[in-house]
């Protein structure tokens, strides 16, 4: 009979520990997602400024697709992310992937979660 109370308290302790896990690891995943989105945007911007030099001299903004893709991938590699880059016309689309390392939820068998974020940037000419 006294055991039923112990089970109840054990339940409360397990629930509270799970709450700590959700706050800690949930926070890590959300932060990683926000970081991944920022990295994707910055990589896409890095790509979108790879214009064809001879056309820049004439005042035209035309993307160099190969250099744009490479610049975006370089940015991702330098900032602890992997991902894919698509260049189509003046538009650079980057999907960045970052890994969130979980601490508390390891006990239920999830140690790393891959987080993806996509950003699109268009190279355009604006009035100076």
């Amino acid at each position: 009979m006294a055991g039923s109370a112990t089970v109840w308290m054990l339940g409360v302790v397990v629930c509270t520990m799970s709450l700590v896990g959700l706050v800690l690891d949930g926070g890590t995943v959300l932060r990683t997602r926000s970081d991944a989105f920022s990295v994707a945007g910055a990589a896409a911007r890095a790509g979108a400024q790879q214009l064809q030099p001879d056309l820049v001299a004439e005042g035209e903004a035309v993307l160099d697709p190969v250099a744009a893709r490479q610049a975006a991938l370089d940015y991702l590699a330098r900032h602890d992310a992997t991902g894919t880059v698509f260049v189509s016309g003046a538009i650079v689309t980057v999907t960045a992937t970052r890994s969130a390392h979980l601490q508390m939820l390891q006990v239920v068998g999830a140690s790393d979660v891959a987080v993806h974020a996509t950003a699109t940037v268009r190279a355009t000419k604006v009035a100076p």
Partner: protein
Amino acid sequence: MSRAAQIADARSRRVGEGGSIAVELVILAPLITVLLAVVVLVGRVEATRADIAGAAHAAARDLSLARDPAAAMGDARALVDATLHVGSSDCLRATLRSSITAAEVRVTVSCEVGLSDVAVLPVPGSMTVSATATEVIDQHRERSVG
């Protein structure tokens, strides 16, 4: 045993069970309090971590857009202070470091998180968390010189 006696016996037993839960609750109340304090502690540190990551990205973007990034540090500082509610226990003090090259702006924001109000735990009065963001500078944009 008569039926009335059986009912009385069962009732007294039920009262006994309820008492054991109350006693355990009293014994375990400090543990529950400590666990809830851990939730508050972890929540506050995590919330500030998310905030400073956002602030670092915003400041780096702000600097990368400025015609003269080095001169825009004041604006970036104001942006970070406003984002982080500097002065509240979420961020007692914020520091902003930046390194600006021709191609990139790199910003590191650090925040001292106040923990003195979760003093039920043996934690130091504050903890410093930091975040770094790097943003590329548009090469084809007019910039002020000097």
